[in-house]
């Protein structure tokens, strides 16, 4: 995490974040939301969870929670 806005607290810094942008294939409507996990503390564990989300293996990434704080 290289930069954060003022609405975030210091305890967020060690949190593992990922954003998911969903787009409607037909209309182009789009929505972006941020998920976080407080249990994935190491970089490698965070990356593994991200990879699970990327492969749409949501069962392996169950500890990511939705966060409205960072959502644009």
């Amino acid at each position, binding site marked *: *995490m*290289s*930069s*954060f806005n003022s609405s975030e607290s210091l305890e967020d810094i060690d949190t593992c*974040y*990922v*954003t*998911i*942008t*969903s*787009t*409607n*294939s*037909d*209309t*182009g*409507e*789009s*929505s*972006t*939301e*941020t*998920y976080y996990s407080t249990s994935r503390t190491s970089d490698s564990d965070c990356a593994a969870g*991200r990879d699970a*989300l*990327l492969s*749409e293996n*949501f*069962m392996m990434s*169950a*500890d*990511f*929670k*939705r*966060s*409205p704080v*960072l959502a644009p």
Partner: protein
Amino acid sequence: MRLFYIAFLSFFMTYGQKDDSSFVLEYEVNYQLGKALVKEGYVFKYEQGVHYYTSKSVFLEESKKFYVDEETGIPNINLRSAGDGSNHNITYLNKNIHIGLYSLGNQLITTTEELILQNWKATGEEETINGRSCVKLVTSYRGRDYIAYVDLSVPVNFGPWKFNNFPGLPVLVKDTENKLSWTLSKIKYEDVAKLKKFTIEQKQYLGSLKSIPLEEYVDIYDSSKGGFDLMVSKLPREFKRQGSGKMKQRKGLEIEFEWEEKQ
């Protein structure tokens, strides 16, 4: 006057018929409802049905499935709803029924609705669009205001998507916020046999999908934030939502419906 009407009606019914071929209107379709896209739309009439279909969506900006935001350092994953963006609609003019296709989360569904005849009003303005002399007409439809430039010399009363009841050929239809546009790019002739085969395949395709009334679709659309919640519906219960999770406003082609009370 009556003779003129009969002659006009006769011309209208036979326009575009070249023995065993019939015309297909081809449009460039542009949507800017989030991620801008373009596709080709095709519409033609066969017997009592107006058949509309589009090519797949081509997004104007490439979005990688995975990238890291340079500013925040947060990785981003892009997901797309079901389908490739191609769309199919059938309007049965004799029954006033419209069948539409929607990409909603992880599935494609069809809806059935009563066709709303649009009331296009003349503005008195004229403009040449793509080399055709057109009159400017306006109407409102499901929360958006539309402008249509229509060539009155060509007796066509249908258009792309759900547009209908034109007094001539719709050369350009767009909304007043410039988020949606359908621009006529070509009129081509196809064998009637080929069109008939397409209509059979289109009906079979739409018939193979889950079908719900339009009102039910709108309820699901609203409760799933435009279907986006359905795209991550496989998430287990550990995925807890923070905040209300409610959609602030609709962002699709249709943003108000006739059965809803005006806000």
